[in-house]
């Protein structure tokens, strides 16, 4: 009998007597033998840490059995982001640790072949080539592209080296437009984790935000509580998302017209005088110019753009006014949709301001954080920050370097010439549009260093590949974000690194030594570093290793005296800053371009069991969702003669053909759009599970509009037609 079947009939009989004798709420059900894999199995131990399967960074308890194998990951009870609960991706995180396709050893390119080498040799090679690059072209010729918690160590190393060019696709290919729009309006970003008090909102509007498929644990926890309490929800999405399924109003808006809807709501609040007058009078500037700019935008006009019934627009607008500061227009996260995204999210921000929910319960909370000190090091070598300045010449409010711009600049060989890339944890061939151009750039580099856990396509172009230990095998920097309660969480190794993989901190430290940068690393071991940082907050590493998370008491995260770090010190409904730069100070609607006949607009999103391409090779998670499918409306499917499960190819407006993808025929999407989950369609045999499963949307994103304000690249501006034969 396997341990799975934990009760024998004999045991049952004896237990029944025990039950009868006991009035306890939980009867003494005793399994005949331990259940294998259960956290109750003898010898099972838990280590506190935090997750890295996505960027939310939930507290986790990682369970190891007596043989030392990680068999379970559960939510850490004392961590404010997980509250003892966990999303499916985090639960299946050991699939990354035990991924048989992991990079096992450092590798050097030798002509056309790879050679596995020792760390000594790999780091020696890297340092030598970096020094040579510095001698030949200057340290600023080396660019750094990163994502994830370990990035801090790599960035520190590169700054000490003298590099000045840093980029992350999480900016121009994700949340950049939102952050810039919120900065312009409120003088502060929407945060990560977002500072949205979803739990206490009484009325919510989601624009494309698909919580539930987008499994940011805490947001989903709060969302479910809000739904359970009967919070009215408006979901604006061309697709009937899971969130839409819970909404009082689902508005299957014509894609690309959200701004028209937002403008109509703003005008309605002003016309009917239902905006939050005390908040606006006290905290906002530019009401009258805003009012004037909104004149054309009636609900009837919005109907002509969005296809949404003006009566419904009015009804929702009135409810927004009624709920006021406890109504929340969710800021979204990945907001690079159409190339005019900063202005759309500006409208989201302005509408929230008219509700007066900044700092308010049920709106954007005023969070707390533990300010941990840094480990003192000498100042970094001065740099020109030349590429930042160049990027701002194109996009005046680009407060980071858009990664596609770094690529284009590198390929063009423009001054300052970029000759080398240090890439950490960034899946560049699947997240930057125009893959061919990215490949051409990779070919042109004198030095490409790739640090990753998995042999992603990018590693194939590298000069040196450094295998990183997974988040379950390493220390990382502390995590102490702004949240409802101030806290600091620790990531610590649960098991020794498998194979010959190493943590980012170790690589940075070792390269620092080889590059003669010891002064910037006044520590040899990361534990010293962490201890030094914790000491600044009166904490100890031993304590945090034991508890996982340290949470401090704080007053409720609300304020009626919010401060705004804008030029005027107020919420800028009308942006003088945008005006001075020649942009619309109040968002102006421009209709999106239309699909050619026979084409669908291609939309992308997320699934609850995957974090983009990071998890598609995770066999634990892949069991539930091994590939993405193409959502096609039932009427459209009939017209195109498509059957459910049929494999098709997509061809975009520029003639680019996708790899095969299976059709999901559904009522849950507008007939003029198709949809797929991002992250699939791996194209490397080295990732054996993911290879060839599903399709990569990034291959089809060749028509890109760039946000003129901050440089984000659009995704939803591509159109596809469906080729019924999947064969080549």
């Amino acid at each position, binding site marked *: 009998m396997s341990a799975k079947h934990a009760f024998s009939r004999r045991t049952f009989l004896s237990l029944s007597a025990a039950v009868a004798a006991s009035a306890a709420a939980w009867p003494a059900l005793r399994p005949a033998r331990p259940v294998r894999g259960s956290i109750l199995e003898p010898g099972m131990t838990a280590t506190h840490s935090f997750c890295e399967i996505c960027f939310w960074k939930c507290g986790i308890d990682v369970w190891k059995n007596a043989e030392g194998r990680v068999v379970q990951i559960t939510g850490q009870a004392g961590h404010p982001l997980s509250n003892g609960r966990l999303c499916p991706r985090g639960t299946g995180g050991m699939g990354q640790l035990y991924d048989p396709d992991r990079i096992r050893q450092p590798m050097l390119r030798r002509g056309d072949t790879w050679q596995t080498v020792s760390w000594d040799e790999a780091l020696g090679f890297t340092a030598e080539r970096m020094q040579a690059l510095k001698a030949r072209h200057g340290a600023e010729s080396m660019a750094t592209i990163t994502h994830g918690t370990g990035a801090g160590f790599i960035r520190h190393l590169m700054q000490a080296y003298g590099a000045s060019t840093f980029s992350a696709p999480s900016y121009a290919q994700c949340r950049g437009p939102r952050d810039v729009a919120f900065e312009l309006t409120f003088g502060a970003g929407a945060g990560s984790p977002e500072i949205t008090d979803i739990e206490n909102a009484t009325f919510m509007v989601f624009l494309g935000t698909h919580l539930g498929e987008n499994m940011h644990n805490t947001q989903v926890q709060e969302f479910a509580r809000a739904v359970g309490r009967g919070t009215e929800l408006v979901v604006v999405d061309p697709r*009937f998302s899971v969130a839409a399924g819970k909404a009082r109003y689902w508005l299957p808006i014509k894609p690309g017209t959200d701004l028209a809807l937002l403008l109509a709501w703003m005008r309605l609040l002003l016309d009917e005088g239902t905006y939050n007058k005390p908040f606006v009078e006290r905290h906002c500037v530019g009401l009258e110019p805003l009012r004037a700019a909104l004149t054309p935008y009636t609900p009837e006009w919005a109907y002509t753009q969005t296809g949404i019934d003006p009566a419904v627009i009015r009804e929702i607008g009135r409810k927004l006014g009624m709920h006021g500061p406890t109504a929340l227009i969710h800021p979204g996260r990945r907001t690079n949709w159409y190339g005019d995204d900063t202005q759309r999210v500006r409208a989201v921000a302005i509408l929230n301001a008219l509700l007066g929910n900044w700092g308010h319960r049920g709106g954007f909370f005023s969070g707390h954080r533990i300010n941990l000190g840094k480990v003192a090091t000498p100042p970094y070598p001065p740099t020109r920050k030349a590429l930042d300045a160049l990027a701002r010449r194109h996009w005046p409010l680009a407060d980071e370097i858009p990664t596609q711009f770094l690529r284009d600049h590198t390929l063009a060989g423009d001054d300052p010439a970029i000759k080398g890339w240090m890439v950490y944890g960034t899946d560049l061939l699947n997240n930057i549009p125009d893959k061919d151009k990215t490949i051409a750039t990779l070919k042109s580099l004198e030095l490409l260093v790739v640090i990753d856990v998995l042999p992603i396509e990018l590693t194939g172009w590298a000069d040196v590949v450094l295998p990183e230990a997974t988040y379950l095998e390493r220390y990382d920097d502390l995590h102490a974000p702004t949240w409802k309660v101030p806290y600091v969480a620790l990531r610590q190794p649960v098991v020794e690194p498998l194979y010959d993989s190493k943590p980012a901190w170790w690589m940075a430290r070792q390269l620092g030594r080889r590059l003669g940068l010891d002064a910037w690393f006044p520590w040899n071991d990361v534990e010293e570093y962490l201890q030094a940082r914790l000491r600044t907050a009166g904490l100890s590493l031993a304590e945090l290793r034991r508890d996982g998370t340290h949470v401090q008491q704080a007053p409720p995260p609300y304020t009626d005296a919010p401060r705004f770090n804008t030029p005027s010190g107020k919420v800028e409904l009308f942006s003088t800053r945008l005006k001075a730069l020649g942009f619309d100070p109040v968002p102006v609607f421009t209709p999106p371009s239309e699909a050619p006949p026979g084409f669908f607009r291609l939309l992308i999103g997320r699934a609850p069991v995957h974090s983009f391409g990071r998890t598609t090779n995770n066999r634990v998670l892949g069991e539930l969702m091994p590939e993405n499918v193409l959502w096609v409306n039932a009427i459209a499917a009939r017209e195109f003669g498509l059957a459910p499960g049929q494999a098709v190819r997509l061809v975009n407006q520029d003639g680019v053909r996708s790899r095969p993808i299976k059709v999901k025929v559904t009522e849950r999407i507008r007939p003029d759009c198709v949809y797929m989950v991002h992250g699939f369609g791996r194209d490397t045999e080295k990732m054996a599970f993911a290879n060839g499963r599903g399709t990569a949307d990034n291959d089809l994103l060749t028509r890109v509009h760039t946000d003129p304000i901050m440089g984000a690249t659009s995704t939803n501006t591509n159109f596809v037609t469906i080729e019924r034969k999947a064969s080549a």
Partner: protein
Amino acid sequence: MFKKIRYVMAIETAKCVGCGACVFACKQENDVPVGFARDWVEQEVHGTYPVLSMENRSQRCQHCDRPPCVYACPTGASHVGPGGITLVDGDLCTGCKACIAACPYDARYVTSRGVVDKCTFCAHRVAQGMEPACVAVCPTSCLHFGDANDPNGEVAGLLATRRHRRQKTHLGTEPQLYWLD
């Protein structure tokens, strides 16, 4: 008077997002082999575009009060455990699949070892005063487990105050999964 313990699950479908965390948690806690699951998510969509409704349901064995699987089992492997939990004794199971044929909820599967397996309500955890793994992990807290006969318990309160339904009640199986509206 002492009342018998009656373990039930009350599920708030309105909260469920169908994410599948319950499936992974169960598979790990019970070492369920690849290709099998003791719980799963059903997503039911009604209507035609654009008038639609959706329900997500985290499904599992219904631990029926009148369990057809137990009645159908020729060896006594399928049996009712304490608290009304329906269990399978792998030692006694011959893998004849009579229970699978009898179960109207499709809750059972045959493992590669040839014996039948299914949800146990994590009886081993319940014995220690813990919730089943699926209940513990759920980010939406849509799953509630407990003794329906404990008048002070959470599920008794939910069942007393919330409208609910059960599945395939016409079959007379008296399922113990309650779907709260």
